């Protein structure tokens, strides 16, 4: 009880700061970074509901992200349906997909859910490649113009700058945090965690485990689909590998794992680590730093090599991070911090 008030205050201050930020920052790159951060938080929090709280480790969340993104983009491109309507079609499609997956996999134990989740995502990816009439196949869907968003006759935004996307992304990230917060404080949260800790025990205590796993899956999938739709309209382009690929599924999962699974702020921490790191690699920031610091000369072979290759190395970095986290801090950054704190407390006593 003592902790709740300062925490809520800190949360409000941060949200207030984020709401005000575009007034003071108009650098598009800075806004872009923030939008990526919001997107990552939404992805991580969504996965966390199923993977972290319910203990069902989906390695196929790209399926929900991609179906959300594709439905919105297809409706926009082919029928001119505005994304704020199209997104609900995406959500409906994702609910159907999630329930099909759930009804097949949640009767089984062990690694089957993980395997099936990958298989379903791959079916989606391959279908997107092959159903060229609907999805434009491997070329993907490009939509450059969004219709202006109106309420009545008043144009709220015409999406010409990054600012409306910034607020949309912020709203999405806050929504996923709020949903997770609500789950933690409800019967759902208790039942999810009981299933994660011990299915048999949970079952004996009156929890219909298949139903609650499906509830977790649907909530997680719907939020992921919203993130997918947002990605689609923000980037303006979707194609099978970027929104339905296995790499994306792994990335989504990583956000929660690195930050700390089954904790409210774990995915936020994970995003704060992963987004800047991969952006720094992508934009050759690290190479530039190494060159500037005099550690590596820009013209040397090492310098050349780094410049050419480090930009592609962010996935390698993901791999190394996963291995290190699993071996040395399996509870993620949150768990690591908690352990340090409790050790210090013990020493103080």
């Amino acid at each position, binding site marked *: 009880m003592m902790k709740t008030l300062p925490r809520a205050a800190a949360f409000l201050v941060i949200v207030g700061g984020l709401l005000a930020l575009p007034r003071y920052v108009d650098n598009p790159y800075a806004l872009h970074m923030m939008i990526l951060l919001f997107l990552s938080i939404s992805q991580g929090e969504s996965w966390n509901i199923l993977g972290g709280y319910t203990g069902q480790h989906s390695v196929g969340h790209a399926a929900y992200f991609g179906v959300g993104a594709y439905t919105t983009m297809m409706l926009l491109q082919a029928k001119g349906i505005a994304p704020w309507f199209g997104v609900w079609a995406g959500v409906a499609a994702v609910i159907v997909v999630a329930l099909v997956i759930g009804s097949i996999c949640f009767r089984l134990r062990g690694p089957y859910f993980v395997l099936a989740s990958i298989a379903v995502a791959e079916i989606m990816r391959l279908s997107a490649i092959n159903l060229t009439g609907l999805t434009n196949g491997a070329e993907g869907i490009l939509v450059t113009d969004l219709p202006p968003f109106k309420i009545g006759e008043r144009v709220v935004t015409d999406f010409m700058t990054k600012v409306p996307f910034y607020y949309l992304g912020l709203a999405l990230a806050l929504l996923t945090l709020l949903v997770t917060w609500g789950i933690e*404080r*409800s*019967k759902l949260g*208790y*039942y999810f*965690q*009981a299933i994660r*800790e*011990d299915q*048999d*025990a*949970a*079952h*004996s*205590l*009156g*929890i*219909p*485990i298949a139903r609650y796993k499906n509830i977790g899956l649907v909530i997680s999938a719907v939020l992921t689909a919203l993130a997918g739709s947002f990605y689609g309209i923000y980037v303006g382009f979707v194609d099978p590998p970027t929104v339905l690929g296995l790499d994306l599924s792994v990335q989504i999962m990583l956000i929660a794992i690195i930050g700390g699974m*089954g904790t409210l702020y774990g995915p936020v921490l994970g995003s704060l680590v992963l987004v800047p790191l991969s952006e720094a690699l992508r934009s050759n920031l690290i190479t530039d730093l190494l060159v500037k610091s005099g550690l590596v000369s820009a013209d040397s072979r090492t310098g050349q090599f780094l410049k050419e290759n480090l930009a592609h190395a962010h996935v390698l970095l993901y791999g190394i991070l996963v291995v290190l986290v699993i071996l040395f801090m399996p509870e993620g950054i949150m768990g690591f911090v908690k352990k340090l704190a409790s050790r210090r407390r013990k020493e103080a006593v």
Partner: protein
Amino acid sequence: MAMLEISHVSKFFGGLAANADVSFDVEAGSIMGLIGPNGAGKTTLFNCITGYYPPSKGEVVFDGRRMNGLQPDRVCKLGMVRTWQKVRPLAKLSVVDNVMVGALARTSSLRKAREMAMEQLKVVRMEHRAGFLAGGLPIGERKKLEVARALATGPKLLLLDEVMGGLNPAESEEIIQLILDIKARGLTQMVIEHDMKAIMRISDRIVVLTSGEKLTEGTPQEVVSNQDVIDAYLGESHA
């Protein structure tokens, strides 16, 4: 009418019969002891009764209702709950949260569930442990936590699977008192136990299983004087 009627229950795994044609009744408000050598099919019978396996043959009738084919969560909602021989704490949840999970079978309000949970923790004298992580408890307290969590679901019939296993005499005595307290509150219990002295003290009736079959049934006095039971147990200790 008995609270639980088990009639001709058999359970086969492949060609092996883990339970063969077991029948007995458990009267409301009584304590039924279930004993037998290792591998006699005691836990399998619990699993058949509580919905973890469907019985291959026979019928389980609880409170006038046929239970065959019901899932464990339905069985629990209908008022029959079991504990586990190998304790299954929800390790990363606190003690009170563990018990709350049980209480949430009766209410959706977290506040009410917490009150119910604290009440059950008092019953097992663990209210001072409420905030501890369940995974860090010593074995004696884990066993008591199992019982509190099961009680929180509001059962009519409690099935305890070796709840004294691995405990020291003082801890066992505490569990015996707890079982008798629960009986005094009017709950029916079925208890699997290896400690013969304890089972003789608490049970109203005892069923003896050997190799999946019911060897005999009776009051504790009848059972200890039964020659077949003596043979079965001597046989076990000679093996």
